[in-house]
């Protein structure tokens, strides 16, 4: 059998194995490692005693602290709610004018608004409310349903063409696909609608007067005789330079032929009333020129 001996250079023992005169050192584990290993072991021991740890058949060791992740979370939320009630309560109870006149509350809106908007609204309406094709721009002065904060709050709660029972409903019928209007009439209508819009340079005189006739028969009911729209039914203003679905001939022809039915989800189950009110004020503040008068 091998015989271990003390190595004269390092002072450690050898394993006793020897290959052609080369002996293998049996260097002990460094002390620092032992210390950390023991500390980790002691920590684990303490953890097993204090916290839920070991499975025991059909139950488990509950730990002396009785810690429960769900209860812990419920307590955190409760604490959070009681701390926030200081400003959530006035946000929910006061009317919008009073909130807009209160600089402390508006500071809360300015602080929480962007986070809420980014997480829930920005996906469609863009980070700065710029919108995009099919998704209305929010940082301008064109409002489909009006710029009254209570109207915006209601839209946030029930959505538009959503699954909510009280949803706002706004449908542009597909006049062409339904066979109501021929391609020729649609062509005239497109020219007329472009002529009343400030996004196009064509004048009404240049547009076909047949388009104007068709407009007053089929479109004026929702979009009004002068094309300024009707915020009660969410009919867009056609005279400004903003288009949800595009104002070029191709897009307008598609709109008149196949109709449009935008969809905004309802948020009443996902966001609390205070969050919806913060978002309402934040959305209004996206266009500074709209609220400069109201803002503190």
């Amino acid at each position, binding site marked *: 059998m091998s015989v271990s001996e003390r190595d004269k250079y390092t002072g450690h023992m050898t394993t006793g194995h020897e290959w052609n005169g080369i002996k293998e050192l049996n260097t*002990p*584990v460094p002390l620092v490692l032992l210390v950390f290993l023991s500390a980790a072991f002691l920590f684990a021991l303490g953890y097993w005693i204090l916290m839920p740890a070991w*499975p025991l*058949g*059909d*139950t*488990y060791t509950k730990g002396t602290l009785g810690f429960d*992740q*769900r209860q*812990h*979370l419920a307590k*955190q*939320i409760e604490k*959070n709610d009681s701390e926030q009630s200081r400003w959530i309560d006035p946000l929910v109870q006061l009317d919008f004018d009073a909130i807009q006149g209160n600089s402390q509350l508006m500071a809360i809106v300015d602080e929480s608004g962007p986070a809420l908007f980014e*997480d*829930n609204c*920005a*996906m*469609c309406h*863009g*980070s700065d409310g710029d919108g*995009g094709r*099919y*998704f209305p721009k929010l940082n301008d002065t064109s409002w489909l349903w009006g710029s009254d904060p209570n109207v915006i709050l209601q839209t946030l709660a029930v959505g538009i063409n959503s*699954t909510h029972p009280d949803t706002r409903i706004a449908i542009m019928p597909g006049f062409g696909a339904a066979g109501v209007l021929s391609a020729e009439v649609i062509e005239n209508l497109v020219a007329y609608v472009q002529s009343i819009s400030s996004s196009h340079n064509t004048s009404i005189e240049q547009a076909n007067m047949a388009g104007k006739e068709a407009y007053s028969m089929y479109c004026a009911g929702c979009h009004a005789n002068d094309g300024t729209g009707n915020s009660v039914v969410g009919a867009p203003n056609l005279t400004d330079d903003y288009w949800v679905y595009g104002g070029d001939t191709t897009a307008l022809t598609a709109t008149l032929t196949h109709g449009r039915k*935008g*969809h*905004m*989800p309802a948020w009443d*189950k*996902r966001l609390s009333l205070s969050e919806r009110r913060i978002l309402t004020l934040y959305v209004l503040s996206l266009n500074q020129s709209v609220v400069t008068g109201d803002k503190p």
Partner: protein
Amino acid sequence: MIFTIHNKIERNSIVLALGIILVSAVGGLVEIAPLFTIDDTVESDPDMRVYTPLELAGRNIYIREGCYSCHSQMIRTLKDEVDRYGPYSRAVESQYDHPMLWGSKRTGPDLARIGEKYSDLWHTRHLNNPRDVVPQSIMPAYSWLLKNDLNTRDLRGNLKAMSRVGVPYKDSMINLANRDAIAQASPSSGDVAGLIERYGQATSVRVFDGDPQRVTEMDAVVAYLQILGRLTEVAHSDTSVKFDSKENVASAEGS
């Protein structure tokens, strides 16, 4: 001292083998033992819906495209997650998920409660090219979903396999899987009534991808995304966390 014992064990192969088995058994025990208490820890919901064939097809595509490698479907019991995503995930919510898609990494956001958060149009445009709606997005485009017709041939076998592992699909659901998948994305089809009868009033029957002429893979994926977190309301009800076992009721009263 502990290393002297270790030295001795190391030199005895039988003892070393037994030691290795013992230590690795701890890992197995920690994973397997909680399954013995599954009735106590998993809530039950008799009203929980099953995935419709179209949603299941979407789920298969979700797996095929590897969505789970960037998106989790698991909201943890942590305050910041509950704040952002909604009520934390309950075990029962993935009762019919075979395999579960909880995921372990979030490059994109969690999707456990994405259902009905955004519109079908948004999902379709976003999957087709995420930059069209979210300019700063780093998600890849899945534009072929709109181009590929949905393969419904395998759905019948798929539902059958699911029923073998415990998902309560009835024979009629299995036999009519192909037809139901098409019907869910074709609101004007005559088969919708049967679909609703089999899967319940809450079933969303819509043209998910905006093209009523075809049923594409996009229809399936959007239908699946829109049902996420909506198979059961358990997580949204504060008090109705029901357990099967009496023991838990007793301990809840005691605490």
